[in-house]
């Protein structure tokens, strides 16, 4: 290769590298900006957030959130306890506010991204550690995780998903090193501990448990059987203890209530979406899995990627969604990084003259230093998401030509389920998360709170934060009631009595995810008094008919 060509290639390599880093750092800025915005927002952004906070509040009082759904306050949690327990120490500092869970979840995403970067960096032996492998690929693999549309949207929410992914990623990172001559046993124990934590954060961790134990099984059957037995024993003992302590409510709410209707079309849709958003990461990870399967030894990482597809396959369950792909996103970022970091420059011969190779190892390296950043750069626009307003993001959105391609649509194209557009564009199209909040949203939240504070006694709200902010008891977990009702496991007589007696001074609906008999009873006993648009959703406020006569002046 001539020195001129070498100079041109080096210059091009630097250019694409800088552009790729800028693109992923840009996504990080968008993510941090969104997270900070959510830290300030006091109300539910996602419908389940307040309920997760309430679980932590119950734990802090020494109470279980696994209860009888059929008796007042008709509330139970459908998730394992660890995320909520981790929130408990933050409650005395931050108060019973969503920021406790949001900070925790955001931190979990940063730890996950850091773990991905460290694992990718460690996957390269000392001899091959040039700047590309030592810094660029690990950095972009970690940032790629935070740049994922799915991670971005769910990352800073008071939801348990990202804490699960953190424990899963850490568990695989430890178990991958279980044969280390010096620290093998320690790594295996730590890996099992992380698996235990993942399982007690969210039930879908079972796929990562499968991946980790399969990896150990392939290498050392005896250790796999021992590790599997130890994990089963520990997890089973805790399971039994909680079930006994809650008189069986744990089993009903954690296992039976999660057996929901499955729509395979939703799964296919989400697989297609996941693939189109993360194409490079997935193709590289899948290619690396196939390579290891047939030509090398299977690693813990590629096995994890394969098993994580199983979680995605469950995404057609009612109540599930793209959040089920976060484990697969983490695995794909990690495995794709390892795949690229392990590309051997000496095997690349991109320039041929006739049938004779005319280039050497250095040319192969030069080719990789262009190709790898270029691939990451080409991947970046597939995941495009950003606010379309504000002094920083507004001009960027305009420059990219997406300032009028909004997540909910606008004007005549506004999605029928929404009352206002949001200044947010996402390559995944319609999505209820990810957008910034406005002054009007804060004002709307305050208006709803005025209704809540004016109500006597408990309110019947589809979101928990209105009750928590007004120091009222949280009544009902709507989706849990619906799950149980759909499975024929909910006795609705007491709750319908409460509604018929109009014992709730206020009802707040957003999506009306309640069992149909409850909705019918409310329709007969309550009347809409206000409709407030907040966060793009219409909140319907209903009063009992008895109160309409008493407090009609308030409405005027």
């Amino acid at each position, binding site marked *: 290769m001539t020195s001129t060509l070498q100079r041109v290639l080096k210059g091009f390599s630097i250019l694409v590298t800088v552009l790729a880093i800028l693109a992923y750092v840009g996504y990080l800025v968008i993510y941090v900006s969104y997270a900070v915005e959510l830290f300030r927002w006091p109300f539910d952004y996602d419908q389940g957030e307040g309920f997760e906070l309430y679980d932590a509040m119950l734990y802090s009082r020494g109470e279980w959130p696994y209860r009888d759904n059929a008796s007042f306050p008709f509330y139970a949690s459908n998730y394992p306890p660890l995320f909520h327990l981790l929130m408990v120490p933050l409650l005395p500092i931050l108060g019973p506010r969503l920021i406790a869970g949001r900070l925790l979840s955001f931190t979990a995403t940063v730890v996950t991204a850091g773990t991905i970067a460290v694992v990718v960096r460690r996957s390269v032996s000392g001899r091959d550690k040039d700047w590309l492998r030592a810094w660029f690929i690990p950095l972009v693999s970690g940032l790629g995780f935070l740049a994922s549309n799915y991670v971005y949207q769910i990352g800073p929410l008071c939801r348990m998903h990202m804490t699960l992914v953190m424990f899963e990623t850490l568990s695989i990172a430890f178990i991958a090193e279980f044969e280390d001559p010096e620290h093998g046993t320690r790594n295996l124990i730590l890996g099992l501990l992380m698996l235990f934590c993942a399982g007690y954060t969210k039930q879908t961790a079972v796929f990562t448990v499968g991946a980790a134990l399969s990896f150990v*099984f*392939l*290498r*050392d*059957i005896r250790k796999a059987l021992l590790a599997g037995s130890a994990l089963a024993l520990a997890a089973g003992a805790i399971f039994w203890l909680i079930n006994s302590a809650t008189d069986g409510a744990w089993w009903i709410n954690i296992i039976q209530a999660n057996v929901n209707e499955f729509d*395979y079309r939703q799964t296919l849709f989400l697989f297609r979406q996941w693939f189109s958003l993360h194409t490079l990461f997935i193709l590289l990870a899948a290619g690396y899995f196939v390579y290891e*399967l*047939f030509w090398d*030894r*299977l690693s813990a990482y590629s096995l994890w990627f394969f098993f994580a597809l199983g979680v995605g396959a469950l995404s057609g369950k009612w109540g599930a969604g793209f959040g089920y792909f976060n484990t697969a996103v983490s695995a794909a970022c990690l495995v794709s990084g390892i795949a690229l970091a392990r590309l051997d420059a000496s095997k690349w011969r991109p320039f041929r003259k006739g049938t004779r190779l005319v280039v050497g190892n250095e040319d192969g390296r030069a080719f990789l230093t262009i190709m790898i950043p270029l691939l990451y750069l080409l991947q970046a626009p597939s995941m495009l998401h950003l606010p379309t307003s504000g002094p920083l993001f507004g001009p960027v959105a305009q420059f990219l030509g997406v300032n009028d391609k909004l997540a909910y649509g606008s004007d005549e194209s506004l999605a029928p389920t929404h009352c206002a557009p949001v200044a947010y564009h996402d390559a995944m199209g319609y999505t209820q998360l990810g957008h910034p909040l406005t002054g009007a949203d804060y004002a709307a939240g305050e208006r709803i709170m005025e209704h809540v504070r004016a109500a006597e006694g408990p309110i019947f709200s589809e979101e928990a934060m209105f009750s928590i902010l007004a120091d009222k008891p949280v009544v009902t977990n709507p989706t849990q009631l619906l799950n149980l009702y759909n499975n024929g496991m909910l006795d609705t007589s007491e709750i319908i009595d409460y509604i018929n007696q109009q014992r709730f001074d206020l009802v707040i609906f957003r999506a009306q995810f309640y069992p149909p008999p409850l909705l019918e009873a409310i329709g007969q006993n309550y009347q809409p008094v206000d409709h407030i648009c907040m966060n793009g959703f219409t909140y319907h406020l209903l009063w009992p008919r008895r109160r309409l006569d008493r407090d009609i002046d308030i409405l005027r």
Partner: protein
Amino acid sequence: MVTKRQLGLLVVAIGIVGIAGIIAVDFLGAGDWSGFGPLQQMGTGLGVAAVIVGLILFQLGDRPA
């Protein structure tokens, strides 16, 4: 340590058991669809793919999996 051959056998077994289970669903009367539903078709496709992958792995002999 498990070899590629042993892993291949395991994968073939999983594929065959999976296909058998999917067919058995019809005899047990489970599922919402009459006849061979779309989920069954996908499951059978995955089962056949597993059998093919398993057979290839089987050919790879005693190399570590």
